[in-house]
C-alpha cells in the first residue's frame, strides 16, 4: 500500500475506533492504539513495517509538538508555585520504580548491567498518551497541573539516569580501561551533550519562535511558524545527535517564558494538531509487536509489576512529602503508568551502544510497552474522573467568557 492510502486508512480507522471505545468509556488514545494494532502487521497487515518506517516522520513531528506543549509547564510563575513539589514527586516515583525494577531483574538472575538499564528505562512515563487523555477530557485542577509537571521532569530524569547508567556500564565493563581518559570522555560526553546541548538548541529555537510570534497575527501564519520551528528543532536535534525530546521541551519552556502571546499560540496548536496525534498513536499501535507478549517471560512480568508498584507508591510518597491534596496523592501514581515514546527510543540506544545486552533489555521493555500503552491511558482517565478534574477546563473557559 502506498503512503497516501496508508495515511487515509490511519485517519479513518483512528476516527472509527476512537468513537467505538467511547462506548466502553475508554480514552480515545487507546482506540487509536487499537486501530494501529488492527491495521499493523500483528493483525490485518495493511500497514507494513515499511509503511510504518516511512510514516515515522509524522511521529517525530507529533512527538515534538506534544513535548512542546508539555514545555509550557515550565512557565516561571508555575515553576515557583509547583516547582519543588513536582521535583520531589518525580524523584520519588522515578527513583522507587527504578529501584524496584532493577531489584526484580537482579532477583531473577539478570546481570547488573541489564538491571541498571531496565531500571533507568522504567522511570519514563509516556508523555504523549498521558497528555492526549488530559486534552480529551478537558481536565484542569491540581492533579492535572502536578501530572503535567511530573511528566516533564520525569522524562528529563529518565534521560539523565539512562545516560548515567550507560556511562557506569562503560566504566564498569572495562571498555574505558583499554582507552584510558579517552574512553571516560567518550562515555561521559553523551550525558552532558544530550542535556546541555538539547536545552541550548531548544532555547535558541524557542527564542526565534518567541521573537517572530510577536510579529505574526493571522491564525494560519502562527501555525506555519510553529510547525517550522518544531520541525527545525527536531531535525536539528537528530542531526546533532541531541535529544529531540529535551529540545522540544526547551522550545515550549522558552516560548512560554519569553512571549506574551504564548497562550494564543498553544491554543492555535490545540485546534489543529488532532490529525497529527491520531497518526502518531496509530503508528505507535502498528509498531507494537503483540507476539512479544508470548516471549515476555518472568522478567517481563516482573518489570510490569515492579514499575507499576514503583510509580503508584513512589508518587504517593512524593505527594505526601510535598503535602499535596489528598486526591492528588491517591491518583497521581495511577496516571503515571503510560510507557512509550522515550522508552522505545532508549531501546534503540541500547541496541546501538550495548549490542550484547540488547536482546534481554529490548524484549522486556517493548513487551511492557504493549501492556502499558493499552492500560496506561485508562489509568489516566480513571484518575481524572475520580478526582473530578475531567471537563473542568471547559467550565473554567465558560466562566471566563461569562
Amino acid at each position, binding site marked *: 500500500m502506498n503512503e497516501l492510502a496508508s495515511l487515509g486508512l490511519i485517519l479513518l480507522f483512528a476516527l472509527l475506533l476512537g468513537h467505538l471505545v467511547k462506548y466502553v468509556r475508554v480514552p480515545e488514545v487507546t482506540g487509536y492504539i487499537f486501530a494501529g494494532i488492527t491495521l499493523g502487521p500483528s493483525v490485518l497487515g495493511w500497514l507494513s513495517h515499511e509503511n510504518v518506517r516511512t510514516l515515522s516522520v509524522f511521529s517525530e513531528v507529533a512527538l515534538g509538538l506534544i513535548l512542546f506543549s508539555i514545555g509550557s509547564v515550565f512557565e516561571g510563575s508555575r515553576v515557583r508555585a509547583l516547582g519543588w513539589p513536582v521535583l520531589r514527586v518525580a524523584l520519588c516515583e522515578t527513583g522507587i520504580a527504578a529501584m524496584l525494577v532493577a531489584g526484580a531483574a537482579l532477583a531473577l538472575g539478570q546481570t547488573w548491567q541489564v538491571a541498571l538499564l531496565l531500571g533507568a528505562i522504567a522511570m519514563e512515563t509516556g508523555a504523549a498518551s498521558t497528555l492526549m487523555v488530559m486534552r480529551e477530557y478537558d481536565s484542569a485542577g491540581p492533579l492535572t497541573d502536578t501530572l503535567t509537571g511530573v511528566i516533564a521532569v520525569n522524562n528529563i530524569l529518565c534521560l539523565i539516569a539512562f545516560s548515567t547508567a550507560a556511562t557506569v556500564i562503560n566504566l564498569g565493563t572495562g571498555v574505558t580501561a583499554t582507552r584510558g581518559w*579517552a574512553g571516560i*570522555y*567518550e562515555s561521559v*560526553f553523551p550525558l552532558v*551533550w544530550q542535556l*546541555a*546541548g538539547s*536545552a*541550548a*538548541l531548544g*532555547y*535558541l529555537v524557542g*527564542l526565534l519562535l518567541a521573537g517572530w510570534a510577536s510579529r505574526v497575527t493571522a491564525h494560519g501564519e502562527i501555525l506555519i511558524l510553529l510547525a517550522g520551528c518544531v520541525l527545525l528543532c527536531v531535525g536539528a536535534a537528530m542531526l*546533532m*545527535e541531541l535529544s529531540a525530546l529535551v529540545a522540544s521541551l526547551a522550545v515550549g519552556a522558552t516560548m512560554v517564558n*519569553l512571549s506574551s502571546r504564548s497562550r494564543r499560540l498553544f491554543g492555535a496548536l490545540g485546534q489543529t494538531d488532532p490529525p497529527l496525534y491520531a497518526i502518531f498513536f496509530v503508528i505507535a499501535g502498528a509498531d507494537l509487536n503483540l507476539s512479544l507478549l508470548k516471549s515476555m517471560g518472568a522478567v517481563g512480568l516482573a518489570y510490569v509489576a515492579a514499575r507499576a508498584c514503583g510509580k503508584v507508591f513512589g508518587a504517593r510518597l512524593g505527594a505526601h512529602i510535598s503535602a499535596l491534596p489528598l486526591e492528588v496523592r491517591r491518583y497521581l501514581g495511577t496516571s503515571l503508568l503510560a510507557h512509550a515514546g522515550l522508552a522505545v527510543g532508549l531501546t534503540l540506544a541500547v541496541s546501538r551502544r550495548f549490542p550484547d545486552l540488547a536482546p534481554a533489555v529490548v524484549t522486556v521493555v517493548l513487551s511492557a510497552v504493549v501492556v502499558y500503552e493499552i492500560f496506561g491511558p485508562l489509568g489516566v482517565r480513571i484518575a481524572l474522573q475520580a478526582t473530578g478534574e475531567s471537563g473542568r477546563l471547559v467550565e473554567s473557559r465558560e466562566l471566563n467568557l461569562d
Partner: protein
Amino acid sequence: VTRQQYIGALTAGAAAILAAGTALKPVRERAPQIVVADPEMERKTLRRSIEASNEWFVETARRARLRLAAVRETGATAIVWDSGGALLAADRGPLDSALHVRFEGGATAKAVVERSTPEFPLMLLRMERTQIAAAPRAVALRPGSSIVIVWPSGFLPATFGGMRSGDCGEALLTTVPLVSVPPGSAAFDLSGALAGFAIRCGGHTEVLSIAWLQRFVEAANSVEARILGRFGMRVRIPEARVIEVWEGASAGRAGVLPGDVIATDVQQLALPASRVVIEVPILRNKRRLTVRLDTRMMEGQRDLAAAGILPADRIVSVNGQPVAGRAEADRLLSRVSSAFLVVQRGERLFGVNVER
C-alpha cells in the same frame, strides 16, 4: 541586569554550548576489520568465480556462433563482417564465383566472392540476403584484456598481450598457444565485440587484428587489388604498366613480364569474366602481343598457400630435389601426397611441409 541583557547572555551561552559540543564531540573510530583466513571458503569462492567465468565464456561463444557461417563448397568458416551482408572467410576462392553459406541456426544464403588474393587465405563474400545475422561491433583491445576465441565446435579463453607483426600482417599476441584454434575462428572481448579473426599463415594460426582486416576489406574494390588477386600481376593504373608478376600465378604462366603494358582497358580486367580464359593484348618493347590469362585459381596454389607459401616466394627444392621454378615444383608436387619444401623469401630460406 535588564531583561534584554539576560536574554542576550542566555543566547550567547546556548550558542557557545552548541559550538563547543560540536567541536569536542568524540570521533567514533571504526572497528578494524579482521580478515579471517579460511582455506575452504577461499577454495569455494575461487571455484564459484571460475564457474561464473566459464559460464560467461560459454554464453559469449553461444552468441558469437550465431555470426559464424560455413562455406558449403570449401568448408571454410566465415564471420559476418558488416550490416551490408559482407562475410569474411578464412579461405581463397575465384573472384566473383558464387558460393553458399550456412549459419549456425540452419539459415542459408548465396554469396559472391568480392575480394580474394593469393597473398592471404582471406576472402570477402557478399551475401544476397543481408538480414541473416547482425555484424558484431569491432573493438581495439588493451593489453591484459580477457578475450575468447570462438569457432563452430569450441572456444578458447585467453588474455590479449598486445599486437605483433605476424607473417600475414598485424596479429594479436595471446597468452595461450593457438595450436588448437582452426582458421575462421573469431576473437571477442568481454563485451562480445569482435577483436580479431584467425587465418592459417606460414604453417601456423594467426589472429589478425581488426585494423588490419579493415585495411584488407577497404582494398576489396580497387582495380589493382582485383587484378592482382585474379591474375597474380600488379599493374600501375594510369599507364597500365605491369610492375610485378607472381611466379606460378595466371599472369606468370601466360608469360607476362614486368614492364609490359596492358593494351586494353585495364578496368575490364577487374570485372567478372564470362569465360575461363581471356585474351589480353599487351605491348612489349613496342611489339604487340596477346596473352591468354586463366581466371581460375589453381589447386596447387591453394595447397601452397595453405602451407604459408606466398606467390612471390621462390621454391628452392621439393623433397631435397632442386627445382628451377614454380612450374617444376608444381609438377613434382602433383606426384606426391606430402612434401618438404625449401623456400626463399627475400634473403631468408626456410623449410615447410606441404600436405595435399
